């Protein structure tokens, strides 16, 4: 993804877009971005996914409520994992390899005990 601009202009194209893994499985939204300062300006170094990334975007009171109900979990996806930016953000690895969608897999394992699941 080296040809892609990694500047602040990327914010609109990536933030709040769906993240899809190498197996085409949705595995979260881009809740925030991590920037690093370089001589040519700030560049994106990672996508941040999870309540720990979106909760700080809420007003203070709601932030506390979110932390109490859904926790502060956050997964950092290094920028080099991004293979394509379109309506969705495609990643080069699977969700499980990146630590995304853990809760879905946990609930899924629990559901396998039920018939017709």
């Amino acid at each position, binding site marked *: 993804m080296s040809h892609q601009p990694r500047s602040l202009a990327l914010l609109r194209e990536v933030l*709040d*877009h*769906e*993240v899809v893994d190498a197996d085409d*499985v*949705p*595995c*979260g*939204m881009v*809740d925030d971005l991590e920037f690093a300062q370089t001589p040519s300006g700030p560049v994106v170094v990672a996508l941040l*996914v999870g309540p720990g990334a*979106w909760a700080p*975007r*809420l007003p203070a009171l709601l932030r506390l409520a979110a932390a109490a109900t859904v926790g502060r979990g956050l997964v950092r996806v290094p920028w080099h994992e991004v293979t394509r930016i379109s*309506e969705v953000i495609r990643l080069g690895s699977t969700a499980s390899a990146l630590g995304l*969608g853990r*809760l*879905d*897999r*946990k*609930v*899924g*394992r*629990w*559901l*396998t005990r*039920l018939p*017709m*699941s």
Partner: protein
Amino acid sequence: MAQFAEIFLGILTAMGGFVEIGELMFTLNGGTRFGYQLLWVNLLGTIGIMVYCEMAGRIAAVKRRAVFSLIRERAGFGAGLLTLVASTLVNLLTCAAEVGGIALLWQLMSGTPYRVLLLLALLFLVLVVWMLSFQWIERLFGLGGLLMIVFLAALVSVGPDWGELASGFVPRWPQTSHPRDTLLYFYFAVALMSSIMLPYETYFYASGGIEDHWKPSDVGLNRAVVIVGFALGALLSVALVGLGAEFYAAKHIDPQLPGTAALAAAATFGTWGLFAALLGMFFAFGGAAIETALSAAYNLAQFAGWPWGKHKRKRDAGRFTLSWLAVFALATLIVETGVDPVSVVEYSIVFSVVVLPFTYFPVLMVAKDRRIMGDHANGWFSNALGWFYLVAITLAALAALPLFLLTHGGRG
């Protein structure tokens, strides 16, 4: 031929699934209180839901994007989250009203205690969604809802004043004897508009298009289903207004329970009319309960980026499955408290009109964007209608709460 059969089936399903408990109660009551004077709202609301479902369905067919991922992407996280919370609440309340409506209908047929029937309704709905595919759920409840055609037959049989009925489609200042009744008229107009344009219908319709694997070549199917199916569905609501005006008002019956709607069919066609009406309403309420529970789960999953869809195995869409199960359970819990399902539906309808502009604005923004939709972007006519309805529902949203308070929730 296969394409024709698909269009025909889609149209029948859209027609049968058009009316739910909120629309049934507001159209019947509106007709009883104001005769045909509110028919123009039925027409306005039906064209509105056609315009926005067509856009949402087209986006689903062309870009495979559902409404809530667009809302978050276009409106941003804060406004998106607010819309998500509000629409989930509306879905939950509407689902609760439909579950309560099913139990009330079963009570009429069996005499079993209402609270026991609520639990049986919960069990029935969970089993249906768990076991049947999306297509079978759509067809079973959509086609079953067609039994409500008995209301149309009852109206024709009663012999309405066709001239008066036709004049109801022209908007006019209400002919009422007291200023309080004028306020009540506008409250009913806003509530009726909201009940026809309930936001879950757009969420469900677009997500359903993705569940049905629509492709860009299905844009024509989408348009036919929306225009013909919803127009025929609206005939059922016109029939309910007519029965309110010709049957209930004449007999001084105030229809406060969904079962009362069956009275007109029973009086006209006897036992089979009664059973057709009760069964038709059962399928309509059951279909709406399923659509609201699934809509809430679709919205949550699309906003948070979870795997979703009835076409997926439940284990592969864990949080989505858990979400619709939770909505059914919470909805049943609400009506188990003893709260009247019809009151619940009134709250949900007034509240939902406030959600409408937030739902429809991002849909319009994407549908008209040529960079995203290419040749399938809105033409000038769709854009004009889209903007007109956005202004209309924003005005309705602003008026909804004051009218609700001033009329004591429609009680005058």
